[in-house]
């Protein structure tokens, strides 16, 4: 479980996050949702420690990130996997090389064991053998995301962070990626935090959701609560789309 307590963050005197607190449970897909520029990525990077929060605490299963020594942070990092918005695969390495990279850096496995583990992770994200020796530039965006997921789970992480995993993907591939993240989270009991503003993704996998608006936590709940609760900030975000307005209207009509 990851717990965030009263996080504040500013850049050059401009406050971006205001006193955010939340709990992200293990085995759940926890989503941070909100419009572009609302502070989702800053919150995620503050939780990971890429940005240093000015005040507040981030607890990884009770371990306070702010109080950790550099060595302890390094150890924690090996328990963390991350899927970046642009995949962030290493251009100079093949698909297999990318997945093997964290193993080569931090495991004491032999080369054969590393290859076996990397191939297992690639198979888990449904990437066939023929693609393993291609470079990231030679595969599609959806495949790159799958390779990035395989790399993120190579070291059996306890915590998985996904920054807008569906950006730039078609709806079908987005569903595949969402399902993959959800399945892996449940299968390995990982604490997963996903940054997204994709409504399909929210309705598909959002076990626990927090809405960020203007750097503040505006709402918290699950995908099942979205149509029930009358939070104005949530409604502004969710029902910006005509499709969801229609779904709600149908729901209200059915209830009546």
């Amino acid at each position, binding site marked *: 479980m990851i717990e965030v307590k009263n996080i504040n963050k500013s850049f050059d005197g401009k406050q971006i996050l205001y006193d955010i607190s939340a709990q992200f449970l293990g085995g759940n897909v926890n989503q941070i949702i909100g419009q572009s520029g609302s502070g989702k990525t800053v919150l995620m990077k503050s939780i990971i420690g*890429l940005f240093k929060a000015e005040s507040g605490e981030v607890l990884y299963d009770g371990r306070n990130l702010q109080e950790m020594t550099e060595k302890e942070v390094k*150890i924690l*990092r090996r328990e963390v996997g*991350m899927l970046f918005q*642009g995949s962030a695969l290493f251009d100079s390495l093949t698909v297999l090389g990318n997945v093997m990279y964290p193993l080569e*850096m931090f495991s004491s496995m032999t080369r054969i064991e590393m290859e076996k583990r990397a191939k297992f992770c690639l198979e888990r994200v449904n990437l066939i053998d023929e693609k393993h020796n291609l470079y990231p530039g030679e595969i599609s965006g959806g495949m790159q995301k799958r390779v990035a997921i395989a790399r993120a789970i190579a070291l059996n992480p306890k915590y998985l962070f996904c920054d807008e995993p569906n950006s730039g993907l078609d709806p079908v591939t987005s569903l595949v990626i969402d399902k993959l993240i959800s399945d892996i989270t449940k299968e390995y009991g990982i604490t997963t935090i996903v940054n997204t503003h994709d409504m399909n993704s929210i309705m598909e996998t959002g076990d626990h959701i927090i809405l960020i608006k203007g750097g503040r936590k505006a709402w918290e709940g699950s995908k099942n609560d979205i149509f029930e609760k009358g939070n104005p900030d949530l409604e502004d975000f969710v029902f910006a789309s005509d499709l969801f307005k229609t779904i709600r209207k149908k729901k209200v009509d059915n209830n009546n």
Partner: protein
Amino acid sequence: MKRLFEDIGRYCQLMLRVFSRTDNRRMLWKQVPTEMVKLGADSILLIAIISIFMGVIMTMQVILNTENPLLPRYTTGLMLRDTYLLEFSSTIMCLLLAGKVGSNIASEIGSMRVSEQIDAMEIMGVNSANYLIFPKIMGLVIFMPILVTLCVALGLIGGVGVAAFTDLITMDDFVYGLQYAFIPFYFTYSVIKSIVFGFIISSVSAFYGYYAFGGALAVGRASTNAVVKSSIIMLLMDIVLTDLMLT
């Protein structure tokens, strides 16, 4: 001025991370030969062409512009040798390398920064500064003496070519000049300078790439800064090293 001191501070912090304890020594040193090829060996052709042509041109210019009966004919070989040993093979060659290698390093690391590849390494717990920059510094610094030797040799061969294929100077006069009052320390001086300059090119360029922020424009800006700043720092260091080693 404040920005300058900030940059110096950040550069020192980065270098501390570059030379701090490595996560995986085997993986790190495996990259050094690759960087030696990419940064050093791939520059041989450029250095060779420029060294030979400049050797030819400088020899001809010296002969044509020093028609003074008081100056002995062998002065041409002497001037060419000392120019190459003292300045051309280290300073001028490194200014050329700053353009080729410096921009390459800054744009490569800068692209990794803006495409979040460096963030990905940090998330994994990898010391990205050490993993990315250390092999580049070592690769270039180790290869520098080879480039200096090659540059001097090919420059002098260019001069010999002028003596062999034109009537401007006899081979005896030219070779006598090359051998006249030779001070072996000049070669050591040149190698030391080139090692220092190799460090400056690789570390300063890596610094600008590592701290690139934004998109493609930031990578372009980092490349430009890498070439300009490393050239200026090299020229300043040239004065310091000359003062320290030759006066």
